């Protein structure tokens, strides 16, 4: 399922206009993303994760007037989640390297992540099928050369060569599309 920023923004705007079904749909859609975000940061303390998820949902609800409709929904949500996370660290007396946190934006931006996946699919479609299959197996799923060779019914050296050629073909295509 793909939830682009436009979709979330549309739900948010409907909620701001008073549509409670859209508002509930928005909050439900955010649940898994927020859980993933806090779980990665808190490392297994699931009670804390759910606490923070709920605090963030409450903030999204109570402070929804602070959303600027002209800006992406994701960055607003992320700023709230990040604040709640830092606040939790601060309260528990733990110092956190704040400068590490901005990079998390990438992890959190599910719209962007799914865009990236779509881009990757498009690129892989454009190179020979065998090379694409080898790259999917070795570089995306993370199989070893031997495992990939067995799954695809190829020789190991064929897998290595195809992966090498596939990467080169991808690089050519990316370079070509940048011009």
């Amino acid at each position, binding site marked *: 399922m793909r939830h682009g920023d436009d979709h979330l923004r549309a739900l948010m705007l409907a909620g701001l206009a008073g549509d409670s079904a859209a508002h509930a749909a928005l909050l439900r859609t955010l649940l898994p993303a927020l859980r993933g975000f806090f779980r990665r940061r808190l490392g297994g303390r699931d009670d804390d994760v*759910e606490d923070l998820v709920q605090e963030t949902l409450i903030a999204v609800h109570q402070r929804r007037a602070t*959303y600027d409709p002209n800006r992406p929904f994701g960055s607003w949500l992320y700023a709230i989640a990040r604040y709640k996370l830092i606040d939790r660290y601060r309260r528990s007396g733990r110092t956190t390297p704040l400068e590490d946190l901005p990079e998390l934006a990438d992890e959190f931006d599910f719209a962007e992540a799914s865009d990236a996946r779509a881009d990757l699919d498009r690129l892989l479609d454009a190179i020979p099928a065998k090379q694409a299959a080898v790259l999917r197996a070795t570089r995306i799923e993370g199989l070893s050369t031997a495992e990939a060779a067995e799954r695809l019914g190829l020789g190991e050296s064929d897998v290595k060569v195809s992966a090498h050629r596939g990467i080169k073909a991808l690089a050519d295509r990316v370079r070509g599309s940048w011009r």
Partner: protein
Amino acid sequence: MNSDDLIATLASDLRPVPRHALGQRVGLGLIAGAVVTAAAVVWWLGLRPDLMPAMHGATFWIKWAYTISLAICATAATARLARPDGATGVWLPLMALPVLGLALIAGWELAMTPPAQWLAMWLGQSWMVCSRNVFLLALPIFAGLLWSFRRFAPTRLGLAGMTGGVAAGAWGATLYCLHCPETSALFVLTWYSLGVIGAGLLGRLLGPRLLRW
């Protein structure tokens, strides 16, 4: 409570949010505070007796141009910091303009005045109370801003507190002009600004404590 129940509860009493709700709330907080400050100017300090004729002169308007432009910049910056992903943008650097403008006028004033009178011009009649009064008059306005922030989501609490303090100080100084008969640009540049800076520092100190959510 489990999160699905929470969502159901939150969505059940949903009121529409007007498009400019944030700006209106900032305005409401400022006005509520300014009413208290204006009352203090009238009943505690008293309006300057020559207020009406003074309003026909240039110095009164120079003072107001200085304090009001500072107040607008600081208020705009504060309103932007009310959003979790807000940045002050051009508003903070823009505050250099009124300061520079008034400094130019003060320089011209010095050039026009014999050096023997510089000290008297700088200290005026009220240098000992001016900054303190501006600072005190800022407090109700700052309290009004704090109230409006209760529904906001600032993430840079120190900075939001500081710009809020400066905004309160500059609006407080604007109302103080209704009392203060001083005419020198150098006086305003020093003692008014000092009061505004004091309010900004107070906001910087209190922001991280009072703006948390």
